[in-house]
């Protein structure tokens, strides 16, 4: 039914906006805005527009949002191809339009070449492997003017909610200390950027296997308050020994071991990986840097995203 689809579409758009706000992004203008392109003499419907600061670009990034909610039987190669082709055209035309500046961007100095498609399957038939297969078969045009289009389905969207939940808990745990939990953007080779602590996540970070964070916590030891420096890793890689060792080497490279403890939050369940974790623990104990590692489980969000609600601070 088209009306039911519209209602579900609006409901999903609201949830998508809630997720993006929770990631620390800033919404520009209203949702569901029509932008007229003089060049194409055509109207483009924009679901939402968000910006965030990218420390590696040293500038604000504008992201055009497309939110779609469908039953699994309607999620197919043609839908993904169609949605991504439409996004390519939108990214090419919309940022050049006057209406885009007047209604969404408000002349903010932003690099607008990024699209984010949030595709929610609203029944229980979602098949992640099939979704990846569709992605692999989607043709991407070659263009001189480069664009980046990120696409997230249920698997990724639930993980984003899980990241938000876990991060908020970390913020609460560290609120009495002098260094509240923030995401940590290490300094990269060949860039002049200093490492940065930030409240929000960039798209690249969301799609990374590790998200680093730093904080201090206050612990009571024998009646005395003691502060402890913590490095946090929100870990989305496989829980196998070589992968854990590689993460350790990443922590070394980015100088994140100058703390008392490292808290590693696994997204995947660690139940079947106890022996790898124990072996990794022995490995780090034998290393020069005497840092204590604690392994925890990220908060998993149930497969119905509508049951998840973000509490604004």
């Amino acid at each position: 039914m088209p009306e039911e689809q519209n209602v579900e579409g609006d409901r999903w758009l609201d949830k998508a906006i809630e997720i993006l706000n929770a990631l620390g992004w800033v919404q520009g203008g209203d949702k569901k805005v029509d932008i007229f392109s003089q060049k194409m003499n055509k109207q483009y419907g924009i679901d939402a527009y968000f910006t965030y600061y990218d420390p590696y670009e040293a500038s604000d990034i504008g992201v055009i949002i497309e939110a779609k909610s469908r039953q699994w039987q309607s999620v197919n190669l043609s839908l993904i191809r169609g949605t991504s082709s439409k996004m390519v055209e939108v990214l090419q035309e919309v940022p050049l339009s006057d209406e885009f500046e007047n209604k969404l961007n408000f002349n903010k100095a932003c690099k607008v070449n990024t699209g984010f498609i949030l595709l929610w399957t609203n029944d229980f038939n979602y098949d992640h492997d099939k979704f990846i297969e569709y992605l692999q078969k989607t043709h991407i045009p070659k263009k001189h003017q480069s664009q980046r289009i990120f696409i997230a389905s249920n698997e990724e969207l639930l993980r984003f909610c899980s990241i938000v939940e876990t991060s908020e808990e970390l913020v609460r745990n560290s609120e009495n200390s002098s260094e509240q939990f923030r995401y940590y953007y290490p300094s990269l080779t060949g860039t002049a950027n200093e490492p940065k602590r930030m409240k929000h996540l960039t798209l690249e970070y969301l799609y990374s296997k590790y998200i680093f964070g730093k904080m201090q916590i206050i612990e009571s030891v024998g009646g005395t308050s003691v502060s402890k420096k913590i490095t946090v890793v929100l870990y989305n890689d496989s829980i196998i020994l070589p992968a854990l060792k590689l993460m350790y080497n990443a922590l070394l490279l980015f100088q994140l071991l100058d703390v008392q403890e490292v808290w590693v939050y696994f997204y995947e369940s660690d139940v079947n990986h106890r022996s790898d974790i124990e072996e990794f623990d022995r490995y780090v104990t034998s290393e020069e840097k005497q840092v204590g590692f604690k392994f925890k489980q990220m908060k998993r969000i149930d497969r119905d995203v509508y049951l998840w609600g973000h509490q604004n601070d």
Partner: protein
Amino acid sequence: MIEKYPNNADIYEVISSKMPFGNSRDFFKKRGMMCVTNRRTEIALYCSRLFLGFEDYEEMRSHTESENNYKKICGIELETVTSLPDIATTLSAKRGDTLDEKTKLMIKDVTSHGDGTVNCVISYQNKKIGKLDLLRKEDRECTFKIEERGDKKLVLTHHEKNEDYSKIIEVLENVSEGLVDDEKILPHKITLEKFTIPQRIEFFDKLLLHNYSNWILEDVRSIKIRKGEELEDEEFSEIELRGINEALLRGDNLRTNEIVKKFERSGYYFSGIIIKLAHKHDPLKIFVETLFKSKPVLPEINIKKSVEVIDDIENTKILPIDEQEKYLKEFWEILYKIYSGFIEEIF
């Protein structure tokens, strides 16, 4: 296996100069990131800022343009009346035994599959020139599969080095030692040596004129020739190759070709060819080498290169290992069918 976490400058270099354009776009597409660009450096710039994990970097490495990322296949016939289950039993009986003290050759595992095929994993030590030591020992492992082909058995392996093939032969000979003739599983090499020089040329003629069902023969890129029983190969010059390609396009029998006749008169025969095949349905072209090596005597098929055709432009793309293995198997079946058919025809 990757151990040291790569810095972003290294990742940038890998994506921008070591990974084919199509592979780099596919790598990130699979992860939900579509890079709409015609420059590898753009993909490299954005994507070097991702903090990827172990399996990502292992996969990235498998997409780089290195010889190791192109697979090959070779095969050996077995001269035996023994059934596949009995062959599995014979191999299993020697599992864990050191078959050669010097190279620590050993059968590590034998598995019988539901489809009747048998998989066998062997291990051995090989000596190679090292970076720190002049000569260092390398532990190698190789898997081979034994399948039924009519009244024959065939060993197939995606060998990485010639030594893998030689060691499989050694294992088969070793386990057959001391067995009664009916139980032996002796290797029977697939070789051009069974044919006279004109027959060797005729064999390649059949290979080139074969109808490759899903593929179209687009070009002959190289022909290796060998004189008599000499071990070294030589190659046809570009002009000679052009003449051969023209003859093939006309559907001519190579043995009637003047260039081929000239070489045949001087005692040369074909020992290998590289052909370029275009897939009939997918935008894919691959360069396939069929080579009869002389030292050791080893028939192999290699994927030398693969390209994806986008907007009429050929972009190098390294195919996933399972896809490479699927195509290699397909080409091996063709080679083996022509080989056994030709043997039947002439003997």
